[in-house]
């Protein structure tokens, strides 16, 4: 036994997890050759913002909350920040703002209600969550079953030591995700030649509805089906897929591949959502309308 007097361990304690809350950082790039995808926060800019507010490394691990419902306390107290989908939030019943540095006192309960718009919110803690990393990341990959378990009531999430720098700002002005129509820039390819000439017009011309069957793997869309080229009963050999790919299964209804998408897939990709718009796609709620516009060619 050590005689050292240790400071009390800081930890978030989960009172209620809500429908789907996981720990996320910026994921595990560089392992695709082992069949391991990147995973990480579905809305990366919101995770980075929450960490910047607290003076953390931008890639520190935080909680990704889906449609609110999370309730936590923090042993020892902590500075926290909430970003992403605007959940109504309270500390011991008193409303607290988003995109701000908040003090969560020892034992006080932070409760998140359901956001009016958007899907995913981020709760970051100064010092970051120090759950055990798996393959260099604390992200939960829901498809591969890798990384820390999804949050459940009673779980303790250790908080790391505070970073050297102080938080530089109290609050960050930021537009919330839209509740109306979402416009996503898309570049056709790599497999647009697997579709009928009219399929690109259909993709770019219609309003899609986001399906309820959407998750961290993909946002599934419903609309007029995208037709395969008429003479085409080929089967695509599985190939690598990037984040934001519009993968089209035989139903003709595209799925926007999100953070936990598989490394390879066997259905052709008609187009890819611009990297700047993937966070907006990840915030699209079931029932919301999505339109695609062509990306201006860079060259």
């Amino acid at each position, binding site marked *: 036994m050590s005689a050292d007097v240790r400071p009390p361990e800081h930890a978030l304690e989960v009172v209620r997890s809500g429908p789907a809350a996981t720990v996320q950082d910026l994921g595990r790039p560089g392992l695709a050759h*082992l069949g391991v995808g990147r995973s990480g926060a579905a809305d990366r800019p919101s995770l980075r913002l929450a960490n910047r507010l607290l003076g953390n490394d931008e890639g520190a691990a935080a909680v990704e909350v889906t449609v609110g419902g999370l309730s936590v306390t923090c042993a020892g107290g902590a500075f926290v920040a909430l970003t992403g989908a605007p959940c109504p939030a309270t500390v011991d019943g008193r409303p607290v703002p988003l995109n701000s540095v908040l003090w969560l006192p020892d034992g006080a309960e932070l409760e998140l209600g359901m956001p009016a718009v958007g899907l995913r919110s981020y709760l970051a803690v100064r010092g970051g969550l120090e759950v055990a990393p798996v393959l260099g990341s604390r992200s939960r990959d829901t498809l591969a079953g890798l990384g820390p378990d999804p949050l459940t009531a009673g779980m303790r999430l250790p908080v790391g030591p505070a970073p050297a720098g102080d938080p530089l700002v109290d609050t960050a002005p930021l537009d919330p995700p839209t509740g109306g129509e979402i416009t996503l820039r898309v570049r056709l390819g790599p497999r647009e030649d697997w579709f009928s000439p009219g399929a690109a017009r259909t993709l770019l011309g219609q309003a899609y509805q986001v399906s309820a069957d959407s998750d961290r793997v993909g946002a599934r869309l419903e609309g007029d089906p995208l037709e395969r080229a008429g003479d085409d009963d080929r089967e695509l050999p*599985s*190939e*690598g897929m*990037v984040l934001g790919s519009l993968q089209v299964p035989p139903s003709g209804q595209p799925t926007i591949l999100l953070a936990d998408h598989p490394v390879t897939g066997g259905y052709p990709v008609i187009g*890819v959502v611009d990297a700047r718009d993937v966070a907006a796609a990840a915030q699209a709620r079931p029932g919301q309308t999505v339109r695609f516009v062509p990306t201006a060619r860079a060259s």
Partner: protein
Amino acid sequence: MRCLPCGDVGLLVELDDLPQVLALHAALEQAPPPGVIDLVPAARTLLLQLDPAQTAVDAVAEQVRSVSVRPGAAPVAGRVELPVVYDGSDLAEVAELTGLSTEEVVAAHTGQEWTVAFCGFSPGFGYLVGEDERLHVPRRSTPRTRVPAGAVGLAGEFGGVYPRESPGGWQLIGRTDATLWDVDRDPPALLVPGTQVRFVRQDAS
């Protein structure tokens, strides 16, 4: 070689066959173009994932076209023997599809050397290529919703072993007790690209 852009974050390089894919992969692994963060080899393609803040698709395509590729340069990454009990639910169907008896299917499976070409589908799922075409069979028309960990299967030109329970559409011919995926092992995948694999018949205990 065809270079197909994937938005602003990827370049899908389409090649004629798997050996070309593996040769280009081996060449690029040694010296990846700046800003490329991940290489994903597959049956006919190599995907380069890039960071759009560091490079652009067109620049990467130019660099890929200038790479000199030595065919057959893919290195061997070790040898593995996998004990298999050949009692898979699709063994009889594979026999019918290949025109072999079930005994001949087992003999063909154990009698050739397999090489892990690439990983995909799920962590540690290696796509194995054999030495002949006798066991090439189509995947099942209806995938199973649940395939157990350790299931040994065939699909198209590939063999494979399911590292963990998952849905799957491969024809199942047997099962192994080997641990294909363990995050506490380095590397966590038993079958990394380049590994040579022998399947060894084991009696059901």
